[in-house]
């Protein structure tokens, strides 16, 4: 399955929107049925292409949020105020609409469920999406790899997947989730509002001696800050995989 998902030249195909689900006031999960979907690995993305009636076309990359399973693929799209593609996907698209996409794409930023070693996931904003695919894949495969997720969002109102993460965390050992809020914290929150610090990463992550596999995804500033803090704490740069998204990344 894993190899089948990586090998083969990609072509555009058409999926159909099977369901949409609002995650926050500005983010929505789109569940697509893609009849020829070959399966995917946790952390991979798809390219989505929108074409206007006059032929103008725009293309963006979106991380896959769901664990592999059949022909169903879920994307969570954060609406960007000045976005060209995301407002359409996050607001206009409805059940039954066709969506042109190609994927799965990328074999570098992926977690392999056969890997039993400890994992640190650090997500900023909608950077949590590919990390959620890893958390969901861990649960779906019955993996016992110990996972720690540090998830930075502006507030608990904008955080994605909050109740599902809490449910998975309480469902069994091996997944620990730490939320970081950069603007507003809920009442009684143990840390003040602010960005992830070295102390927080030390407390919520793994000591470098555990040699965790590290996946960091988010806006460029978040990724560089977290990766630098982890390297400064003694983590091996070769164990840290990063995925930045910028203005043209569209994620």
């Amino acid at each position: 399955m894993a190899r089948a998902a990586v090998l083969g030249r990609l072509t555009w195909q058409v999926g159909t929107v099977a369901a949409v689900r609002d995650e926050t006031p500005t983010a929505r999960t789109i569940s697509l049925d893609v009849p020829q979907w070959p399966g995917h690995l946790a952390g991979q993305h798809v390219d989505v292409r929108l074409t206007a009636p006059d032929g103008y076309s725009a293309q963006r990359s979106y991380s896959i949020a769901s664990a592999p399973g059949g022909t169903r693929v879920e994307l969570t799209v954060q609406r960007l105020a000045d976005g060209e593609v995301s407002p359409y996907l996050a607001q206009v698209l409805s059940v039954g609409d066709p969506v042109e996409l190609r994927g799965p794409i990328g074999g570098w930023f992926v977690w392999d469920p056969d890997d039993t070693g400890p994992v640190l996931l650090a997500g900023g904003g909608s950077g949590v999406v590919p990390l959620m695919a890893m958390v969901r894949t861990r649960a779906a495969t019955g993996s016992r790899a110990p996972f720690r997720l540090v998830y930075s969002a502006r507030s608990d109102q904008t955080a994605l997947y909050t109740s599902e993460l809490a449910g998975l965390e309480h469902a069994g050992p091996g997944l620990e989730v730490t939320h970081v809020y950069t603007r507003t914290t809920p009442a009684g929150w143990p840390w003040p509002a602010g960005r992830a610090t070295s102390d927080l990463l030390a407390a919520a992550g793994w000591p470098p001696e555990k040699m965790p596999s590290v996946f960091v995804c988010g806006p460029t500033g978040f990724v560089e800050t977290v990766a630098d803090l982890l390297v400064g704490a003694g983590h091996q740069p070769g164990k840290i995989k990063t995925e930045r998204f910028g203005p043209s990344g569209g994620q």
Partner: protein
Amino acid sequence: MNACLDGNVLAGALSELFTIDITSATGQCVSCGTSGAIGQARVYADAPGLVARCPACGQVVLRLVRSPGRAWLDLRGITCLEVALPG
């Protein structure tokens, strides 16, 4: 203009040219000799094409320009690609 992305972002465009995922292949930089996954390159996407630079020395390792019906791939900065294959 200085925002860069990771080499992962090349995967879709390169998948039009290659059947294997080039971003998980290991490449060696012509300029400084550093080896690493193409997915670790620094990619600048706000040019007419995609420009990938070595994360260690900053030299250009790959450029890819796509137009309707045609692609140009410049691999000037990579001496050798090591690709994992099944079997």
